[in-house]
């Protein structure tokens, strides 16, 4: 409780007596951040599959597997943040349907089990059957289990895999929209909090999710190619950059609209939010999210639409931009989640937030939750390498 006494001395103005403790800390910043990466990566994958953007082919499986790796982790910070983590299942068995949070478990499971796992399974089934025959020992057995005993490799069955996979992706697009739009609704529907309560919140969350997910796949595609020492497919990377630019324009427009609307309406909460934005959120909003995370990538990608420098320079810029965007969106979530709790609901003062180093809500744990999906992804890429897929029909 020491930290609360420290907080007490840092209170600025008047806050309600119970408001000293900031209730949703860094773990709840990670939650929309990671789910956003999932939704964004999946939508990039579906561009190739459903909208037939063939040039994106090299990123298709990578995007899907990235979505899976991050989705597995998405729920962990959330559960570990609960005051009673071992009661988390109550939300599934006795959901209270008037709560915006109640169906998260179902939305999550739907997305994991019905969309991602099924789509990946249909996409890899033929390869897993072939790999189970090619490999030996443990790995062979593992692939056998993963095929769930469906070993039929007849062209008809393989064609069905493709058809069903396509169908799942079609369902997956609205599901990805649902997953992240819904996360936005959890915040946007809190009428007590004027910083969150905007009807645009789900839409903003969705577009920022797409921005971050595409940037992540862009980064991973370059990183994985570098590790595997293979040449980066520049038309593909440029195409990813193109979509990133379009989505970033939309995201920037929506977020600006939200702020302009707030400023113009200048409701009861305006003064406190003005102080918040120009005070406690100054750096994270204007510098990290706005300038570094949005404007610089936007301008660079915009210039690339008109003028294309040499591939080497483009690659370097794509790398920097993807990292900047990933940081920018992280701070966007930060500004929403932490920012929304820094001011008092009395609109008369501020509390403060200090990120500790250790503990379940500390900096090191945050790094762990952010690194974990990459480790899971590394394992999945080892298990299901997209570059070892059998493109040709197997000789029977």
């Amino acid at each position: 409780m020491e930290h609360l006494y420290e907080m007490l001395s840092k209170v600025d103005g008047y806050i309600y007596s119970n408001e000293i403790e900031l209730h949703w800390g860094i773990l709840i910043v990670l939650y929309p951040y990671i789910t956003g990466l999932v939704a964004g990566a999946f939508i990039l994958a579906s561009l190739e599959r459903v909208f037939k953007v063939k040039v994106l082919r090299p990123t298709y499986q990578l995007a899907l597997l990235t979505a899976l790796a991050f989705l597995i982790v998405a729920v962990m910070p959330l559960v570990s943040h609960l005051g009673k983590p071992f009661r988390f299942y109550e939300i599934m068995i006795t959901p209270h349907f008037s709560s915006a949070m109640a169906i998260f478990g179902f939305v999550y499971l739907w997305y994991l089990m019905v969309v991602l796992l099924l789509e990946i399974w249909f996409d890899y089934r033929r390869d897993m059957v072939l790999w189970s025959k090619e490999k030996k020992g443990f790995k062979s057995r593992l692939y056998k289990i993963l095929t769930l005993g469906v070993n039929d490799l007849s062209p008809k069955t393989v064609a069905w895999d493709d058809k069903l996979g396509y169908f799942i992706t079609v369902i997956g697009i609205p599901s990805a929209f649902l997953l992240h739009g819904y996360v936005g609704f959890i915040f946007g529907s809190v009428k007590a909090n004027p910083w969150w309560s905007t009807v645009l919140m789900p839409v903003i969350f969705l577009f920022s999710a797409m921005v971050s997910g595409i940037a992540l796949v862009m980064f991973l595609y370059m990183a994985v190619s570098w590790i595997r020492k293979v040449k980066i497919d520049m038309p593909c990377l440029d195409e990813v950059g193109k979509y990133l630019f379009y989505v970033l324009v939309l995201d920037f427009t929506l977020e600006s609209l939200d702020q302009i609307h707030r400023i113009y309406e200048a409701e009861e909460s305006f003064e406190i939010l003005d102080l918040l934005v120009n005070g406690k959120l100054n750096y994270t909003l204007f510098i990290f999210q706005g300038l570094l995370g949005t404007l610089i990538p936007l301008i660079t990608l915009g210039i690339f639409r008109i003028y294309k420098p040499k591939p080497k320079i483009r690659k370097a810029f794509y790398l920097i931009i993807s990292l900047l965007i990933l940081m920018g969106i992280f701070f966007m979530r930060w500004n929403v989640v932490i920012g929304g709790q820094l001011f008092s609901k009395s609109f008369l003062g501020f509390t403060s937030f200090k990120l500790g180093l250790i503990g379940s809500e500390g900096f090191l744990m945050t790094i762990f939750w952010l690194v974990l999906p990459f480790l899971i992804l590394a394992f999945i890429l080892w298990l299901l390498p997209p570059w070892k897929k059998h493109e040709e029909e197997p000789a029977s």
Partner: protein
Amino acid sequence: MGSKRINNSRRSFIKKTAALTGTILASSSLKPFNAILFATEQSDESKPWYGIGIDIEKCIGCGNCAKACKEENNVPKEPFYFRNWVEQYTIKNDGEIVVESPNGGIDGFTQSVPDEEIFKTFFVPKMCNHCAKSPCTQVCPVGATFESPEGIALMDENYCIGCRYCIQACPYGCRYIHPDKGTADKCTLCYHRIKKGLKPACFEVCPTGARIFGDLNEKDGVMHNFLKNHNCMVLKPNLNTGSKLYYNGLSAEVR
């Protein structure tokens, strides 16, 4: 002719009954989807439906209510957990609003603004508003927060998962996480006392009778008369929480 008419009326009766039954069945199966329309049900007027009245003009800021609440309900003593607290509002001549509530008012108040700068000053006791459309009940993902038949917002600590969504949703800052239990905690309007016919602790100890509580359904009851004889206001009416905590003499600056 007559039998035909009877047949007709019988037929239409059967039709109407079938339609009615169908509607009831259909609407009952749609019940879970009513979740989006929250708390639109009216209270049963034959049963008690508690409301609270606080007369700001009578409050002297002694802090007894906040103190008694902590004693009665085993609220942690640290100055971060309150079910009940008192705020001292001071409006300065230049319009600046100064609000203070050191340790929730338990240790009394001092005035930090010099007399000559004060336009007006008053105390505002705060507690759970026991809203009829309470946002905390609405957002609880497991239903650990619920409304008692008497209209009191209660918490089941054995069921709460500690997600803290209710704390975010309460516009009045009336909830906290109990440091030892890890679950949300709040004012119960001393449910254990009022069930025995006693007053809630904070009402019991108020030396000026600034606090009253009673059945809003009771005609000519205390609440009925309080609301009739005073121009009362609730906090943050724009949020439509259905607050049942009515203040007499509430100044526009109070939030």
